């Protein structure tokens, strides 16, 4: 099979699957839809792996440097004499890595959904939407030019809208889907204008040419730097606006407000969209244009860095206070993506200086596995207890051994405990931050500790905390197809850290030597362990407070007093200070101010629209008056004032 065909088939198979299931699914394939979707994706995954093998080991390197290979290019449309739009497929290290991640995670989600969505009335539609989403995401990473990526970018938005709103009987799901769509549209507006700015000055939309023209000295670069708006060069504006688009999809502060609400969708959907694919699209986009950011617009890269660092910390604090397990995971995703963003921000281009870039991509890779594992695990738990709230859970470790173990592995991985995968990628990022910006390093370290704490708070609340209540009926752990993805992803969460990403995915295509000194790792790992210990102390057994009150009643006051004295301190520190003084205000700020600003914008528009209704009075004489007023206004402005 020729390479072009092989790569083209990766996104085309899910597309074909979407068309078949979309057109005939409901009537003829209602029971086999899941199998068809999973099989087609299975082939896509195999092809992705094959492509990765070929690229990394056979054909990707020229003189030891991994190349951008445009395997297919078609001059789709000549927009103007000096600007044509191509449609193409391009592979380079990040694309290949993303192909593997997206297709593999999507396959796991498909498998899991076979069991999870069984019995849904719109089973076939669900798989059609999943296929559409996978197609869009694969198309996005393969895009060879910025127009094409925008197209797929929007398609990803549309298909995630369909998926989040899948339970359309629930008004909250509909509202969430709409919110996600509109908020990311706002961000896409930035992206669109960014594209127009870049295209206007460089006269090209192709990534290869665009990067070449903007990262090396060229007349185009001089032009775009010479043009300024509010004292900032057009290049910086263009890149910042593109980043705004990425920040919207990747849920960076303050455009993250759609993410927690989007948890209304089916849980496997969250595992797909909100762990490994759509939310990292922003990181992917910045990485795609990284040479331009790093070489020509370091100012814009600074913005990426601070936005990422702030989001990472902000989200981690909020995650400590949430009680809905999916929301904890949502904020955790935002926090981890913040990690990837600031890692790009602290990086430079080329050689060992590109450590941050490599770390970011590495973390993207490992995070995809353990985060989708966490979501799928949460899905299995929700499937079992029919609730998202922590208070309805507890003691599930005996009932769901596989979920329990895999969830634990994922928690250890995200907390950065060696030798799980998250440890390796996080260390690279921390080292890169340490070397270039101590403030960001500090934030990252703190976030890392918080991450360990809230993840284990989640873990203990689900699996320990209190003895399991056996409900009258329960599903057990779910079907075999639900267990297999958990096991496979757990394996990946352990071994992904050993993938030689440093050899493969670097800023300039040259392998770099990544060696994080053992001494460097001591501090982060200690912090992570401290977080875990704190969480263990607080949440492993059920909250002591009610027990203590009971004992007070019983009269064994003194012993209890001393026994719990130390816990009082813990409780004071965590509940009062961490939760009430930092977490709660942060959550409040998030809910009321950031969210509120968006609502305010909506309200202003609505009020304005209310104010002007008088114009449309229904009287023709009024219309004539406005007509005449329009002419008078034009005359006034253009004849008296302007001329």
């Amino acid at each position: 099979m020729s390479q072009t065909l092989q790569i083209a088939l990766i996104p085309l198979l899910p597309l074909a699957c979407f068309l078949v299931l979309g057109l005939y699914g409901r009537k003829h394939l209602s029971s086999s839809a899941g199998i068809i979707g999973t099989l087609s994706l299975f082939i896509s995954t195999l092809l992705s792996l094959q492509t990765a093998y070929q690229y990394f080991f056979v054909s990707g390197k020229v003189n030891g440097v991994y190349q951008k290979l445009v395997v297919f290019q078609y001059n789709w449309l000549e927009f103007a004499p000096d600007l044509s739009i191509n449609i193409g497929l391009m592979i380079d290290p990040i694309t290949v890595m993303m192909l593997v991640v997206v297709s593999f995670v999507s396959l796991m989600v498909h498998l899991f959904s076979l069991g999870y969505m069984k019995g849904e009335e719109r089973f076939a539609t669900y798989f059609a939407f999943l296929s559409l989403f996978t197609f869009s995401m694969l198309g996005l990473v393969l895009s060879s030019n910025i127009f094409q990526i925008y197209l797929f970018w929007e398609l990803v938005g549309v298909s995630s809208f369909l998926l989040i709103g899948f339970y359309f009987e629930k008004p909250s799901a509909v509202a969430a889907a709409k919110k996600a769509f509109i908020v990311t549209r706002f961000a896409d507006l930035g992206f669109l204008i960014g594209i127009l700015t870049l295209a206007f000055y460089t006269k090209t939309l192709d990534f290869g040419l665009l990067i070449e023209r903007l990262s090396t000295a060229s007349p185009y670069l001089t032009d775009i730097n010479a043009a300024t708006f509010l004292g900032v060069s057009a290049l910086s504006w263009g890149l910042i606006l593109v980043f705004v688009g990425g920040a919207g999809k990747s849920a960076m502060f303050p455009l993250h407000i759609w993410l927690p609400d989007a948890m209304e969708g089916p849980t496997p959907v969250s595992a797909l969209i909100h762990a490994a694919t759509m939310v990292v699209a922003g990181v992917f986009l910045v990485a795609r244009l990284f040479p331009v950011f790093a070489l020509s617009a370091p100012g814009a890269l600074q913005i990426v860095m601070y936005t990422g660092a702030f989001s990472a910390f902000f989200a981690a604090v909020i995650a400590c206070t949430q009680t809905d397990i999916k929301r904890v995971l949502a904020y955790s995703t935002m926090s981890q993506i913040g990690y990837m963003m600031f890692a790009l921000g602290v990086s430079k281009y080329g050689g060992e200086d590109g450590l941050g870039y490599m770390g970011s991509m590495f973390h993207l890779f490992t995070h995809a596995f353990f985060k989708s594992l966490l979501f799928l695990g949460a899905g299995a738990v929700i499937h079992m207890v029919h609730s998202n709230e922590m208070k309805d859970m507890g003691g599930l470790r005996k009932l769901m051994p596989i979920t329990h173990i895999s969830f634990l592995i994922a928690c250890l991985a995200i907390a950065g405990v060696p030798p799980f995968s998250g440890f390796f990628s996080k260390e690279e990022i921390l080292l890169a931050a340490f070397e270039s910006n101590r403030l960001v390093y500090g934030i990252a370290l703190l976030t890392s500790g918080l991450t360990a704490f809230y993840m284990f708070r989640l873990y203990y609340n689900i699996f320990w905390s209190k003895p399991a209540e056996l409900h009258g009926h329960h599903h057990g752990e779910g079907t075999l197809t639900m267990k297999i993805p958990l096991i496979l992803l757990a394996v990946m969460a352990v071994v992904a850290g050993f993938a030689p990403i440093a050899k493969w995915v670097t800023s300039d295509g040259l392998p770099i030597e990544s060696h994080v000194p053992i001494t460097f790792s001591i501090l982060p790992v200690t912090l992570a362990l401290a977080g875990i210990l704190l969480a263990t102390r607080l949440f492993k057994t059920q909250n002591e407070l009610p027990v203590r009150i009971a004992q007070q009643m019983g009269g064994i006051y003194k012993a209890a007093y001393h026994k719990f004295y130390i816990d009082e301190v813990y409780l004071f520190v965590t509940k009062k200070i961490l939760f009430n003084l930092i977490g709660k205000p942060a959550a409040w700020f998030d809910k009321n101010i950031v969210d509120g600003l968006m609502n305010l914008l909506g309200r202003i528009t609505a009020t304005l629209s209310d104010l002007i209704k008088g114009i449309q009075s229904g009287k023709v004489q009024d219309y004539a008056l406005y007509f005449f007023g329009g002419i008078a206004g034009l005359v006034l402005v253009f004849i008296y004032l302007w001329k």
Partner: protein
Amino acid sequence: MLNEYFFVLKAEWMLIAIIFLLLFLKVGTSDWKNETLLYGINILLLVNLLVGFFSNLEGGLFSGMFHNDALLILEKNILNIGVYLVSLIAYPWLKKHEHVLEFYILLLTTLLGMFFMISSGNLLLFYLGLEMSTIPLAAIANFDLDKRKSSEAAMKMIISSAFSSALLLFGVSLIYGTTGTLVFTEITPLLNGSPLQLLAFILLLAGFSFKMSVVPFHLWTADVYEGAPVAVTAYLSVISKSAILFIFLQVLYVVFKPMSSEWYFMLFFLSILTILLGNLFAMRQTNLKRFLAFSSIAQVGFILLGLSAGSKTGMASVIYFLLIYMFSNLAAFGVIGLVSASTGKESIDDFKGFYKTNPFLSWILAIALFSLAGVPPTAGFFGKFFLIMAGAERGNYVWVIFAALNMIISFYYYLKVVKAIFMDPNDQPIEKLTVPALPKLAFVICLTGMVLTGILSWIYEYIHTLSNF
């Protein structure tokens, strides 16, 4: 010579022939059933549409008063497609109507007027065409004979357009006063941007703006759109708007080329107002027809942005957008018209739960709305993207950002309708409707248009090669 009179005017002759045929049918005593009549007329229109693609001749007639070139032929073909689609979607409504023949005679007369208008090389013929395409329209706006709102719409339309024509004529006379000629090619070199000429241009612009429903000259639109029968509304908002934009392109790009910096800022001014007010009004509408009316006002604001480029690319992107806009808008109007003709329901609330009972129509309407909103991969996305890209050529980022921002706002209200159709519950949804063959054909054509016009790049490229001035 005779040959020339025949082939250069071919599109017009075709229409005249059909109009006369229908007139004879009317005068003669025929007691044909409406269905037969409608099928016959639609076949005639299809023939007319197909003939439009063959043996066309470019050239000028009547000493430059009338001219025809490849671009104009394309534009006439686009209008022919539009009229054919309108005729198809009007079927469920006309089937029960007593005056089918009159409807078509009036409708085709306006189309003939538009053809003369866009082919004109002289302000006189332009004015003649403009009036010919307006006055019969007021008559067919009144075609829901038993509805008061319909006659109100007709009244409002005729009064408002008389008013706008008067001012437009004043503008024409000022042009004549300052240049001494009415011929397009002779006017251009004599334009110097003097205040009197600027006033003349503003008056002309107001006349055009009235037809295109540009704010603040748009106020008649909502009332007329709401009152008129759905097919007529569709015709007004798509065909007549496209025709006037076609000639507006010529007037701006060719005739008033020397004043391009002046008209650029005027368009800027008007476009901002139009997009803003169109969007704000569209948001609060509860009647679907009114909703589409206002959203189509906002669409014109975007067209003005593309138009402002003043280049080949600008021209191409406007014509391209109009083609896509035609498919999308007619699909939307088609569904609404069908529902309105069968159940009388037109409000957004009535459409709640529409998907449960009418999945096919729901998908058509949803795709049309997505295309109007500009969501990929529908053609509407490409149309809008190209408009904005063409507009960006002049480097006026305030305008581009404003337009893009409003695109997002428009998403909100288009999505609201889609949400009502698919997601909102309703105890009494619109019952299952049978879609007659002719509207079904229209939906299939529109759907194909909405999907393929974006993807097939040669359509844009073809328009781009023809766009020359």
